[in-house]
């Protein structure tokens, strides 16, 4: 990857002030990394087992020496089981959904039944009188939506304009959930209906009803496009954005197409996918004179605190955010949201804690989604496979929110001198989109990787070989993919692939392959504190959260390594905004951000501890080592003393160090307050084998070989879990998931988990994970993320396998029987 702009993991205007600062348009040159004292350090670089070499980089003076490869470590790189696994499977773990506080009230929202309307009046008197009701609040402004450029455009309106069915209007807090539900029904809203439009292509028409009466702004979002300010808007169509994430056009596209020996051109359609986390969005607000406590199901404690501070005009010091466990989050759980804002106001009014958890319908409708897309893609290439042109026009709708682009892969994955990309946001009267596991990129890869496959066939080249020819940027992700293609092809049995459509009989099998690319991101300046107590306890603290990836466990592993302890012996504390600022669980950046800070803090503690133990062991501090639960003098096994005993003997009250995530040693392509973007990406390739029943249109994904890199894997078991999850969610997206709307009413019809179809146990393919250990010489742990890369290539790999099975391209997702039978008829 080259220089790109990104604001992954944040969406809509429902964001903190801090996150909004990232939204400055265009690429900004990153300052040189790590000012301050430094040393020249030799570091291992490359892929372990594939010939490591050494590079010399400038490293901050106070950072620990580089780690060797995982095989030489005791805790890092080991498949440690989740420290909180038993708590989770026994139901002991307390999610926001489970929070019960003394005197807690139940919040319930009133949402619009119309998809587009002006509200003439709201009468809450009957609701207020209902027994058990303690507070009612009407929303003054709506979060998670694009905003009119002209703030006076709807000045005459007393209430926010309704732009989608399900838009929150007001909320009630009551003693019981049932009273809240009954009272909400008593709120009388007088609407003035306006014409509405829900379909992407319908909304693009010139005479379509307008979702917004004028041009809008929505700061760059993680939904893909990242619309810079001031883009033209005609009707509902905003754009083009020709520089998605800072990647501008290059070369001369017309010339590139003239230079091509072979051209492929096609139209691709992808559907709206909703997030469906196991735990819906929710927040419990406890407003007291001394301060506001928020229990949140969130991907970023900091974003909850900062947005509450901004909207309620409170100092951050008065707000505490707690999130012990978050029941899944795929990009949509940032900030406080409309539901949280309502909960806080209700708590303030009722002087009691208020629980506001979205129900499953609300979660589907207004909790966020992956936008749909309509992509027209044209590729040109020379006979030898060299690309000469990539031209993309993409429209997508994120409902009332912008950010429906299709990622950046068309500009960054392959070497091509002439690239022109146009991405448009199309507004519709539907709920807002939100970042969703590799926002935009999943849609983009679906078109790009099928087109490249088509090109390979036209050129008579093997699809894997063609990638080898054009995936040649000098980046860590390109290096990784080169190895991944080779390893994966071998394990998968790619050489057994037959010509397209060669199976006889109604059920046809095929093999396909697609590549992944995602950003390598870091949340800069986050910090971790490590403490060693006088009794030998070791604890680590960071205000990050666990959305299910195993954050507590990797934090403990990294700290344990420095003390020669086992991860279970480390107190691993996250989920409280009172700890040092931690990374957001979005953009696959927790591990890349948290682990270097944790290691740096642990290292400093360990070195200070060594100094304090030196007299006891009658040794030079530099000669004191921590290993296998013991303290000893290097080379003198006889000096070994159990860790706790040694600390107790040293008479230490407490040692504590706080360290920050320093810049990557090589610096960044771009650096913003909460996101730094490396010029390197994260790779990954996936191979798929499918069976297509050509009579019923049923597609079965039988096998996936997923080959991935994530820098240094801190915990291969957890990395594998992430990859399993990414593949399963990818199969689900490719085959089943789709939001269905009733155009006439604007309502979602399948806002449940009965008719919104998600992959089930019988649909999960055999998944084989191959994992590289790649050392990039960038930080004190060299860890990178994997959650998003694991989800990027699956749908495209399945689609390419579908072609190999049937000889027909499927360019529309999901691959339902209806879409499959239509594709087979072409």
């Amino acid at each position: 990857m080259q220089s790109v702009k990104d604001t992954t993991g944040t969406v809509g205007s429902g964001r903190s002030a801090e996150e909004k600062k990232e939204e400055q348009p265009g690429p900004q040159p990153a300052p040189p990394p790590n000012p301050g004292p430094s040393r020249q350090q030799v570091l291992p670089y490359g892929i372990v087992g594939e010939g490591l070499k050494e590079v010399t980089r400038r490293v901050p003076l106070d950072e620990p020496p580089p780690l060797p490869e995982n095989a030489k470590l005791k805790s890092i790189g080991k498949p440690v089981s989740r420290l909180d696994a038993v708590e989770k499977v026994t139901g002991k773990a307390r999610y926001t959904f489970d929070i019960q506080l003394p005197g807690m009230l139940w919040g319930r929202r009133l949402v619009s039944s119309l998809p587009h309307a002006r509200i003439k009046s709201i009468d809450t008197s009957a609701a207020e009188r209902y027994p058990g009701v303690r507070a009612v609040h009407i929303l003054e402004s709506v979060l998670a939506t694009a905003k009119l450029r002209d703030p006076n455009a709807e000045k005459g309106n007393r209430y926010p304009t309704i732009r989608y069915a399900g838009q929150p209007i007001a909320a009630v807090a009551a003693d019981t959930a049932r009273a809240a539900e009954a009272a909400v029904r008593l709120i009388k809203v007088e609407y003035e209906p306006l014409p509405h439009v829900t379909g992407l292509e319908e909304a693009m028409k010139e005479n379509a009803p307008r979702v917004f009466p004028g041009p809008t702004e929505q700061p760059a979002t993680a939904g893909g496009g990242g619309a810079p300010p001031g883009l033209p808007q005609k009707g509902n169509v905003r754009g083009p954005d020709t520089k998605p994430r800072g990647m501008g056009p290059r070369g001369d596209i017309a010339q590139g197409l003239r230079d091509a020996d072979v051209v492929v051109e096609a139209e691709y359609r992808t559907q709206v996918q909703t997030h469906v986390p196991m735990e819906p969005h929710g927040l419990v607000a406890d407003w007291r004179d001394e301060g506001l406590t928020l229990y949140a199901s969130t991907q970023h404690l900091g974003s909850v605190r900062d947005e509450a501070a901004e909207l309620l005009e409170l100092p951050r010091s008065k707000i505490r955010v707690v999130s012990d466990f978050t029941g899944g989050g795929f990009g949509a759980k940032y900030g406080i949201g409309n539901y949280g804002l309502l909960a806080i106001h209700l708590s303030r009014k009722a002087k009691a804690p208020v629980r506001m958890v979205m129900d499953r319908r609300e979660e589907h409708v207004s909790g966020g989604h992956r936008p749909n897309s309509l992509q027209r893609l044209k590729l040109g290439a020379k006979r030898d496979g060299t690309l000469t042109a990539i031209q993309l026009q993409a429209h997508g709708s994120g409902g009332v929110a912008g950010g429906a682009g299709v990622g950046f892969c068309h500009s960054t994955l392959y070497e091509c001198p002439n690239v022109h990309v146009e991405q448009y946001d199309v507004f519709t009267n539907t709920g807002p989109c939100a970042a969703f596991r590799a926002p935009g990129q999943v849609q983009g890869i679906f078109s790009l990787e099928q087109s490249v496959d088509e090109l390979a066939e036209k050129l008579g080249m093997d699809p894997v070989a063609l990638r080898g020819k054009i995936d040649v940027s000098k980046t860590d992700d390109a290096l990784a993919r080169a190895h991944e293609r080779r390893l994966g092809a071998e394990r998968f049995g790619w050489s057994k692939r037959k010509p397209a459509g060669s199976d006889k009989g109604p059920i046809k099998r095929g093999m396909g392959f697609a590549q992944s690319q995602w950003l390598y991101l870091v949340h800069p300046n986050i910090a971790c504190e490590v403490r060693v107590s006088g009794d030998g306890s070791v604890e680590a603290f960071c205000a990050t959260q666990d959305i299910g990836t195993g954050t507590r466990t990797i934090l403990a592993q990294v700290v344990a390594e420095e003390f020669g302890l086992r991860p279970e012996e480390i107190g691993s504390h996250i989920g409280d905004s009172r700890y040092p600022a931690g990374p957001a669980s979005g953009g696959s950046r927790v591990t890349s951000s948290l682990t270097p800070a944790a290691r740096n803090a642990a290292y400093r503690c360990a070195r200070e501890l060594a100094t304090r133990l030196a007299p006891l062991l009658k040794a030079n501090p530099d000669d004191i080592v921590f290993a296998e639960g013991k303290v000893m003098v290097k080379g003198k096994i006889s000096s070994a003393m159990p860790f706790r005993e040694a600390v107790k003997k040293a008479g230490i009250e407490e040692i504590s160090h706080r360290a920050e995530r320093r810049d990557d040693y090589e610096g960044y392509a771009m650096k913003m307050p909460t996101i730094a973007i490396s010029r390197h990406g994260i790779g990954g390739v996936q191979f798929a084998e499918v069976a297509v029943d050509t009579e019923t249109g049923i597609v079965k994904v039988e096998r996936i070989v997923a080959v991935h890199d994530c820098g240094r894997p801190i915990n291969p078991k957890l990395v594998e879990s992430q990859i399993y999850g990414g593949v399963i969610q990818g199969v689900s997206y490719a085959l089943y998931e789709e939001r269905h709307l009733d155009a006439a009413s604007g309502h979602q019809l399948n806002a449940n988990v009965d008719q919104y179809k998600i992959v089930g146990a019988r649909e999960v393919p055999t998944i084989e994970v191959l994992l590289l250990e790649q050392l990039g010489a960038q930080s004190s742990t060299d860890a990178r993320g994997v959650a998003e890369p694991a989800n990027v290539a699956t749908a495209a790999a399945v689609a390419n396998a579908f072609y190999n099975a049937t000889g027909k391209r499927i360019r529309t997702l999901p691959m339902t029987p209806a879409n499959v039978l239509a594709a087979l008829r072409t």
Partner: protein
Amino acid sequence: MQSFEWVDAESVEQAVSLLGEGNERKPVVAKAGGMDLLDLMKGGVVAPHRVVNLKTIKGLDGVRFDAKQGMELGALVTLARLSRESEVRRRFVALAEAAEHAATPQVRNAATLGGNLLQRPRCWYFRYDHFHQAAGNDVERVRAGQNQYHAIFDNQRTVMVHASTPATALLAYGASVELTGPGGKSRVVPLSDFLLPPDMKRSTDTVIAPNELLTRVRIPAPEAGTKAAYHKQGERESYDWPICDVAVVLRMEGKVIRQAAIALGWVAPTPRRATEAERLLVGKTLDEGLAGQAAKAAVSGATPLSMNAYKVPILEAIIRRTVLAAAAA
């Protein structure tokens, strides 16, 4: 969900009497496994004043087979049990298969045969309380809307399909239901007459009266040479509602088909017999070609809606495969 009263019924008579007390303002509903009822109550589609629990009634979960009387299944027999009972497996394999492929193991453990037959449609317009309150014609709304999972036959008056999949198998076996009313009086109604085209405005899609209880299901004893097969085709193999399901019951003499019953579920407002296809089969020796002809005949009268034409070739393939599977059983 609204608050409601709960009564554990001790007898059929008591249940019937309690159900008879209901009226529009204070609806009383019966609950067996509660699987469908809970969904409807949570969705705000049904808001009973009183729920009568039938699970406390003894003697309604019998499975009895008699060579003369045939099979008698108590209304409270669970789908899980239905799929495992050896008499059902041995003599009515299509029914056992239909029960086994319904819903999920957890649901099958609770759901009862009676409740399954009385469940309401899965139509997403029906299941959303918004559309029960909305103005306008509810049939035309679906016809003009998202009708991909709706009827491809007999869809002039309604486009919703009945949800029960065991009903498809029971229709092929010529089953009847026993309804018991006040004073212990019961009547036996053929399943084909029992089920009515779904209607959002009614509180049932059957001919059951408000003061009646579905007490038993009766299936005639199969004649010698009976073979059967069932297939439910969903988008997913895990928990899913069907695109269509097909039950085939053949009486064969050697390789010759003497009688054929082909029932099609989820393609018409109520499960439908493919009589044209059945006629084609009778008196003939089955082979791939004949099965294909029969399947083609079965779908020839289809009148798909704007979004469900894809169901026609799928149904055709499933009929052909299930006929062949039945003969090979």
